[in-house]
């Protein structure tokens, strides 16, 4: 099981949850499982080609997935995904 930590502003797309637990072996499967449970949320994270939007960062543990294997980054049971959006307001 993988834990996806949802930033506050995206929680309305996942039933208000701070974390969503999914079964996944890599980041792509984790996001697809999130979309399966909460349809519509993937479009907030990924573009039409399925890549992570360039103003959003996804961390696996303490590492940015862009510098691992990106969407193919392998996840162990108990891994934690953290989503960090560029927050534009001020």
């Amino acid at each position, binding site marked *: 099981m993988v834990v996806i930590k949802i930033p506050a502003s995206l929680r309305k797309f996942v039933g208000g949850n*701070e974390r969503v637990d999914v079964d996944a072996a890599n980041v792509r499967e984790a996001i697809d499982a999130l979309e399966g449970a909460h349809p519509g949320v993937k479009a907030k994270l990924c573009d039409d080609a399925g890549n992570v939007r*360039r103003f959003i960062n996804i961390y696996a543990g303490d590492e940015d997935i862009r510098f691992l294997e990106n969407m193919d980054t392998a996840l162990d049971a108990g891994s934690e995904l953290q989503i960090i959006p*560029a*927050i534009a*307001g001020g």
Partner: protein
Amino acid sequence: MTRAVVIGLGGLGCPAALGLAESGIGELLLVDPDTVELSNLQRQVLYRTADVGRAKVEVATQRLSESFSGLRVEGRRVHLGAANARELLRGADVVVDCTDDPGSRFIVNDVGLELGIPTVLGGVLQFDGLVLAVSGHSGPCFRCLFEVPPPTEEARRCGEAGVLGPLCGVVGHLQAQRAWGLVSGHAAAQTGFVTTVDGLRGRIRDVPLPEATDCPACGGLAARLDITPYSCPMTYVRTRLALETLNPGQTLDIVMRRGEPSRNVPRNLLDEGHDVLINGAVDDGRHRVVVRRVC
């Protein structure tokens, strides 16, 4: 006299400017093009109902001068853009970006690095906040984390999408604290990570910034090295081995124990001609050195 520039005097800029004044900073330059609106007052703590319609820089300058008699504060009623950023930032010891303009954070980030001025970037929207401090001389920076600003339709501003009032105070004051740390000898503890603030649960979390070697703004951070398990001289042996994997011009971020390692490692690096960019305590037990390989 220490000089700070605050860009944007909204939900973040008000508490950030107030926090900098409270820290005892000598000079403040406030930059904002807007006038006070009634809907601002819920979170923009420098303004009152009677100020609606007045220029924010004018009101904020007046309020801060009244409260902090030793503070030299001036305002510029302009929008920061690529054309005037250098002129506004030049001469500052630290710059705090509090705008609601997604492009402005990239401009402040890039010009800060170009001029060698540390910057503190903040953002807040609805229930999420973010703070990131960038050293003036080395990465990682905001552009290492985010490659592009969000598109306009995604970048809804606080006035449209709403923002939790106390979250603005937390994030703005945290920006002021980091800015104070950067100019008062505590830079090692302020940079290298992004802080996320969860306004719903009240959680504040530091996440390390990515290592990257191709950032167009800061050149990136080539590698991190943790030598806290080691004692001298193994600390420096490990450091040299790590430096040898870098190309000249690349930077290495090293964490070591305080005491003997924190005295010896930076001195050895300087003796060998490398640029020590950051050198200071992170906490009671750990010391951080950021070094650029020269030869």
